[in-house]
């Protein structure tokens, strides 16, 4: 069964199209990854699915309910962990949970039992009477996840749940998410720009860039779709190197980015020497050569000609951080 259905979903902000005619479906019980660089439109899409933002055009259904006309039914079906913090810091962990439970009309005895269970699940039961403002980033995130599960949603949206956390906490949180998906049969739609995480943990992923879906499949199929192996060469003179390598029969395609050039080739190991010789003969300086199997980052590079990392270092991230820093104050 298809539990999330998007049909030509579009959102414009004063003429700027943040989400552009997006259509796809998520199957019940799936862990669905929604990947893309900052500013791609992930949060905007999730906000529309969660009924917080009205679409400019298009339709979407969550758990069979229309996001425009059956908002309350959609809201009862979903749990959401927002990208930005959304706890009341002046309340305790328990009170944050209790507030949520009351808003969702969960009866007192059930509410108390579940809060206890969930706080144990995210290992916060010992700290349940502490004010949230004393919690670390990882603890807050875990509390938000526990809170999002309190009303036992059919679908859980997680918007960058591991952003800014240390690797250990990130693994921890991913373990919970997988466990919930398996044990409670919750469908999970998760956005992230950590591609390796998504690769390991998602059943299928959609890659979004500039508001448009550019690829959607299982991580394996996406990577196989590129075919062959990848040789990444770090060189100041990619312009001269590319045409030379293109002459070889084993060459499939190439991408230049930021002092690097990535060649997609068959049987990479055999041809490193060829590329090195060629550079030597033509006086092209090579700083490093690296061979690897395609990753989802390469899939993104393949479809857009850019790397996700370049995007992150770009101005968007900087502006967002500045913005956030200001908002936190």
């Amino acid at each position: 069964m298809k539990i999330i259905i998007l049909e030509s979903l579009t959102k414009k902000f004063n003429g700027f199209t943040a989400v552009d005619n997006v259509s796809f479906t998520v199957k019940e019980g799936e862990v669905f990854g929604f990947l893309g660089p900052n500013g791609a439109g992930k949060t905007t899409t999730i906000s529309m699915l969660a009924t917080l933002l009205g679409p400019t055009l298009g339709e979407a259904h969550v758990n069979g309910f229309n996001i425009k006309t059956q908002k309350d039914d959609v809201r009862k079906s979903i749990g959401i962990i927002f990208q930005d913090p959304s706890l009341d810091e002046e309340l305790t962990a328990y009170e944050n949970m209790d507030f949520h439970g009351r808003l969702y009309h969960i009866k007192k005895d059930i509410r108390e039992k579940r809060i206890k269970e969930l706080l144990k699940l995210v290992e916060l039961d010992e700290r349940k009477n502490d004010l949230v403002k004393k919690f670390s980033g990882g603890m807050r995130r875990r509390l938000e996840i526990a809170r999002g599960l309190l009303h036992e949603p059919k679908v859980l949206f997680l918007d960058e749940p591991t952003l800014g956390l240390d690797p250990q906490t990130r693994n921890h949180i991913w373990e919970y998410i997988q466990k919930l998906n398996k044990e409670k049969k919750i469908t999970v739609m998760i956005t992230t720009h950590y591609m390796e995480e998504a690769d390991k943990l998602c059943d299928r992923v959609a890659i979004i860039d500039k508001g448009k879906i550019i690829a959607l499949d299982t991580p394996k199929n996406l990577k196989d779709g590129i075919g062959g192996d990848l040789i990444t060469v770090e060189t100041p003179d990619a312009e001269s190197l590319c045409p030379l390598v293109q002459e070889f029969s084993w060459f499939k395609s190439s991408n230049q980015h930021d002092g690097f050039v990535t060649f997609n080739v068959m049987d990479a190991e055999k041809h490193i020497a060829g590329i090195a010789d060629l550079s030597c003969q033509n006086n092209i300086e090579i700083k490093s050569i690296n061979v690897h199997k395609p990753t989802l980052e390469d899939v993104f590079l393949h479809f857009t000609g850019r790397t996700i990392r370049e995007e992150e270092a770009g101005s968007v991230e900087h502006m967002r951080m500045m913005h956030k820093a200001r908002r936190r104050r």
Partner: protein
Amino acid sequence: MGVIYTIWLRNVKRYLRSKSRIVGSLGMPLFFLLILGFGLNSVINIPGMEHDYIRFIIPGIVAMSVLFTSVFSGIQIIWDKQFGFLKETLVAPVSRVEIMLGQTLGGATTALIQGLIILVLSLFLGGGVPNVAGFLIAVLFMVLIGLSFTALGIAFASPMEDMHGFQLVMNFVIFPVFGLSGAVFPISTLPPFLRYLTYLDPLTYGVEGIRAGLLGTSQISPPVCFFALIGFATFMIFLGGYLFKRMKV
């Protein structure tokens, strides 16, 4: 009902927990009470009024305390917006009207507590409460001021993105509302054009209502005060509710 109670409870809990805010916001009203009350007590003689000046302004200062606390409570939703907590509330399967009403009742409750603290403190400064009925009348008007101005705070905060607008609201709405309300001077001795301005100020009816309760005399009759203020409260709750419903997060 459950939702309104939940939001109310959160507001009251947060208020009771912020001891520094409770004490801090007693500062200005006490300052006014001491400076004006004692500073001008011997100089000012209010015509037609047998009470001291300090007893005359106590209801005004109580009203001031309720006014400031309630506007501040309403405006607080901007913080909830900025700290992201509002999203958590708005994505729940509850109507925004319920959320807004819970917020308004919560703000009015904290404002009432703050007003009562000033009232109790004023007892040590020469103030008094004549009888139970008078006290209840004063409380009734404090509640009405609290509801009206929390709703007003919400109305202003709903379209605002951050706290920058807060100063504007304070300077161009709240201080004039306080200043024109007859909290610290009798309306009857004003020149006519100023007197009409005070009649347009909803807080005037709140101050006069509390005065009727605490002093037993007032310049505007209590029923008039009651209907004027309840009309304003209703209007503000509808306006606040309307703007809150349209708010984007």
